[in-house]
C-alpha cells in the first residue's frame, strides 16, 4: 500500500491529539513531545522526544499513538529520538496557560526568575530538585504560601 500525502496528514493530526497519560487535557503536540510524522520506507514513522530519559509514561504514550493511527487504518512505527533534546521551550503557549491555571505548574523561563502561577510573585525558593516526577522541581512561594512545581530546564551546552 502506498502512503499518500493525505494519509500522512491525517495520521499527523490524529497523533497530535493523543493526550499525555497524566494530564488528559494536554496533548503530546502541545507539550512538544511530538517531533514529526514522516514516511520511512513503506511505513509511517512517528518521532517522539521524551521530556526526560527513563520516563515511565513512554510505553503508554507509544501505545496511545499506535492506537490513534490504527483507528485510521495505519500501522505506525514509533521512534523515541535522542535529538533534538526536549526543553520547556517546546511547550506551546496555550499548554503553558493550562499548566499554570489548572495545575499550578510553572515553567523555568529562559532568563530571569520563575513566576509563581498562583500570585505572580517572583520570589520562590527551591525546596527540592525533583518532585513527584523527575521532570519537575519543588519550590515554595513565600508570598501566597503554596508549594509550586516547576518544569525543569536542562542546561544545554552549545558546542
Amino acid at each position: 500500500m502506498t502512503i499518500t500525502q493525505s494519509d500522512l496528514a491525517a495520521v499527523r493530526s490524529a497523533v497530535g491529539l493523543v493526550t499525555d497519560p497524566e494530564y488528559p487535557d494536554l496533548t503530546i503536540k502541545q507539550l512538544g513531545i511530538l517531533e514529526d510524522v514522516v514516511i520511512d520506507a513503506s511505513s509511517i514513522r512517528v518521532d517522539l522526544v521524551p521530556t526526560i530519559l527513563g520516563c515511565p509514561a513512554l510505553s503508554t504514550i507509544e501505545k496511545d499513538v499506535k492506537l490513534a493511527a490504527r483507528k485510521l487504518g495505519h500501522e505506525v512505527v514509533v521512534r523515541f529520538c535522542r535529538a533534538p533534546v526536549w526543553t520547556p521551550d517546546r511547550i506551546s503557549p496555550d499548554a503553558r496557560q493550562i499548566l499554570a491555571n489548572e495545575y499550578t505548574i510553572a515553567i523555568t523561563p529562559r532568563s530571569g526568575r520563575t513566576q509563581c502561577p498562583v500570585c505572580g510573585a517572583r520570589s520562590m525558593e527551591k525546596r527540592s530538585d525533583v518532585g513527584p516526577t523527575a521532570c519537575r522541581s519543588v519550590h515554595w512561594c513565600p508570598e501566597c504560601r503554596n508549594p509550586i512545581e516547576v518544569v525543569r530546564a536542562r542546561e544545554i551546552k552549545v558546542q
Partner: protein
Amino acid sequence: MEKFEDFLDAGGVVEPNDAMPESYRNAVFRFIELHANSEYMGGLTERDWIPKAPGLHRKLTALAKTQDEIGHAHLLYMIAADLQIKTREEMMIDLLEGRTHFHNVFHYRVHSWTDQIAVAYLVDAAALASQQAVFRNCSYGPYKRILRRVIAEEGFHMRNGEEMMLLMAHGTRTQHEMMQESINRWWLPAVQLFGPDSRPSDELLRWHIKSERNEVLRDRYVQKFVPQLLGGGFTVPDPGLRKDPVDGKWKISEIDWEPLKKTMRNGGPDSARRIADARTAWQNADWVRKALDSSSEVYA
C-alpha cells in the same frame, strides 16, 4: 463562625494568609497530615517492590510510583507545616513513634506480586475516588491545588494497575489463581478505605473539606468494581454479595468496623513492622538530612 460557614457554603476558598477559625485550621491540618502520612507509608511499600518487580519496565513503573508518592507526601507536609500546628519534623517523629495515623490499606502485608497488583488496581482506585471527592469543592486552597496534580498522577497509576490486572486475568491458570487470592485479601481493605458511614455532624463535610459522604463513595466504588472483577473471571470475596432486584444495584454484606478501628490505631496485622521499617528508613537517611542542612555552611 457562622459567617465563616456561610462563606464556605457559598463556595469560598480559604488561603493561608486569610484569617480562619482555630477549629477549622485544626481540622484541615489533621486531614492533610493523615493524607501526607499515607502517601509516605505508601511510597515505602512501593519502594519494597522496585527490586522484586518482574522485568525492567515494571521496575521503572515501581520506581516512578515511589517517586510520585514520596513527592506527594513532600508537598502535603509542606502545606501541613505551614498551618503552624506542627513542624514537618514533629509530624515525622509522631508518625514513626506511632502517635499519628495513616490509611488502613498500609497496615497489611503485601505477600506477592499479585498482591501488589491488587493494591494498584483496587486500593489505588479507592484512594483516587476519595481524593476526587475531596478535590471537587475543597475549601482549603493550597490543598485543592495539590490534589489536582495528585489526582492526575494517581489516574496514571490506576491505568497501570488495570493493565497488570488484565494481564493476570488473561494469563495462565496459576496467574489467575494467584490474582484471585490477592483479590480475596485486598477487596475488604479497599472497600473499608472509605470508612464507616459519615456522621450527620461530620465537620469535614460541613466545612467542605470533604464533599461526599463515605457511604456514597463506597457504594459507587462497589457498583464499578464488582462488574469489573466478575468480567475478569474473578469472584468477589463476599458471600453476602447480591444484586438488588429492585434497583439493580450491587449490595455488599454489612461491614464489621471493629477490626478497622483497631487497625487505624496502628494495631493492624502489619502495623508494627511497617512503622519500624519507616523508622529505619528515617534513621538511615539521617546523614543525608544533616548533609543538606549543613551544605550552605560548607559551601558558602
